[in-house]
């Protein structure tokens, strides 16, 4: 068996008395699009934050391509090929779209302790930024300040920023959040394309999108993975149905 690209083992994170991540284990194979779904408050964002290094787990481990990254800071994980998008758009608002993306490219192209040469004239970085913007269909908005872009466009920039770091694994935290129907469809199409190039962990509420995209789905309820499998198996799973019908009580006493 090949080593999975991402392996999460028995991860535990508590907030006071609440166990937000309860013994979560999951594997993401290279080339896979692995979706994580679950009702509100299931601990999806808490889990993602531990994968990206913004939150430290209390127990368990996370490894990327065989390397233990459980306690590495966010910027080191990024250097190892882990990129993320934020659920709530988190960009440099007073920078242009191109600057936002070029900075991500810069982080992976040699030292940034260069004090004299104009970084906006570095052709390599600018080209990488434009390529990533082009990829998400926003090349024509490159020189616009992010604060002047629409919500949908900012979601796309989030993706372009993640892509510009040439990641092995992309963690997408609700990329469809707040998008209109047409924008959502566009995003699904874009993700269809991207999954051919990069492994993706997708946290998403939009069920049609998840079932259209995912190779495998893990269902998180009250911090626990109650089911994991391909879309057809998840659709047929009784526990999952109960969780989504709102009878979470049953699920908490499960297993």
């Amino acid at each position: 068996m090949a080593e999975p690209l991402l392996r999460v083992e028995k991860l535990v994170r508590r907030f006071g008395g609440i166990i937000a991540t309860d013994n979560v284990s999951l594997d993401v194979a290279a080339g896979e699009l692995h979706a994580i779904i679950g009702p509100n408050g299931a601990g999806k964002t808490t889990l993602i934050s531990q994968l990206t290094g913004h939150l430290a787990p209390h127990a368990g481990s996370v490894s990327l391509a065989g390397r233990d990254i459980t306690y590495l800071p966010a910027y080191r994980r990024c250097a190892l090929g882990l990129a993320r998008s934020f659920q709530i758009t988190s960009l440099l608002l007073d920078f242009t779209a191109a600057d936002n993306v070029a900075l991500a490219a810069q982080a992976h192209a040699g030292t940034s302790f260069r004090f004299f040469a104009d970084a906006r004239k570095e052709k390599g970085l600018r080209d990488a930024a434009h390529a990533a913007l082009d990829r998400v269909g926003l090349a024509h908005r490159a020189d616009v300040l992010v604060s002047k872009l629409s919500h949908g466009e900012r979601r796309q920039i989030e993706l372009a920023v993640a892509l510009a770091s040439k990641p092995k694994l992309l963690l997408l935290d609700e990329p469809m959040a707040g998008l209109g129907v047409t924008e959502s469809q566009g995003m699904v199409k874009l993700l269809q394309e991207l999954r051919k190039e990069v492994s993706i962990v997708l946290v998403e509420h939009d069920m049609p999108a998840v079932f259209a995209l995912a190779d495998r789905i893990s269902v998180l309820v009250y911090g626990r993975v109650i089911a994991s499998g391909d879309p057809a198996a998840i659709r047929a799973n009784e526990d999952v149905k109960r969780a989504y019908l709102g009878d979470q009580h049953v699920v908490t006493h499960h297993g």
Partner: protein
Amino acid sequence: MKSFTVSKAVTALMLAGLVLLPLYSQVSGNIFILTLFTRIVILALAAASLNLIMGFGGMMSFGHAAYLGIGGYAVGMLAQEGVGSGWIQFPVALAASATYALVIGALSLRTRGVYFIMITLAFAQMAYYVASGLARYGGDDGLTVYKRSDFSGLINLGNRTQFYYLCLACLLGVIFLIWRIVNSRFGLVVQGLRSNEQRMQAIGFPAKRYQLVCFVISGTMCGLAGALLANNTDFVSPAVMYWTRSGDLMVMVILGGMGTLFGPIMGAVVFLLLEEFLSQITEYWALIMGPLLLLIVLFGRGGIMGMLGRAGRG
């Protein structure tokens, strides 16, 4: 091609004025104005260095005057000990400031927001009390610098005009460096951190390392201002490090326009000229100055540079 704007015109006018000032002083026989403007140029240099961390880096340091003291005491103490050469005094002043910035920065940058403001303030006050306790170097009363830094005949700091041009050259040199820095890879990272630290960490930048280097660069630049200031007044005392002086520098930066290249010069010129002329009119000049500054900060977002920018568009 960038077009003509009001703020550029005013900036150019101000710079031309600063360059030609000694000529005016000579022709009109007004020596006082040259002395006043030497002080303005030196404090503009200090404000510009503060602007690098405050305006571009988003680090609200409330202890920047400490570097004025460190640079000044380096010159004064060496002079007292018989080392009069500027070739030694100035590098020591810069190195001492850089070292202080490195230590203070490493400790302060563990905190954010109000705590960062308070801790930088606390360290500067500590420096103030340390200087007050230096009995050998005048303690509370300060230290008279009997001989200005000697640059082996290359430039005579005792000559008012030469000294003024040295200060102006230092100011413009520092502005040039800041201009290069803020557009460099390093500068974009530092400004990115000001804008959104979490995002910058997520794309792979360790925040503190960049902020600390920026903090040290800024402190070193301000140490230069300190060394010049001691030469200008032939005197250095703990008072240059007092927290009100740090506050003055912050006001100059905010008044001129945070995060703009020439804003701090503008701010220093306006602030110190106002102070000078109001204090000639009345003893209670601070009563006029305070509300005036308040109005500009409240209603002129982006300081003078911001207002000029809007005037250019409007």
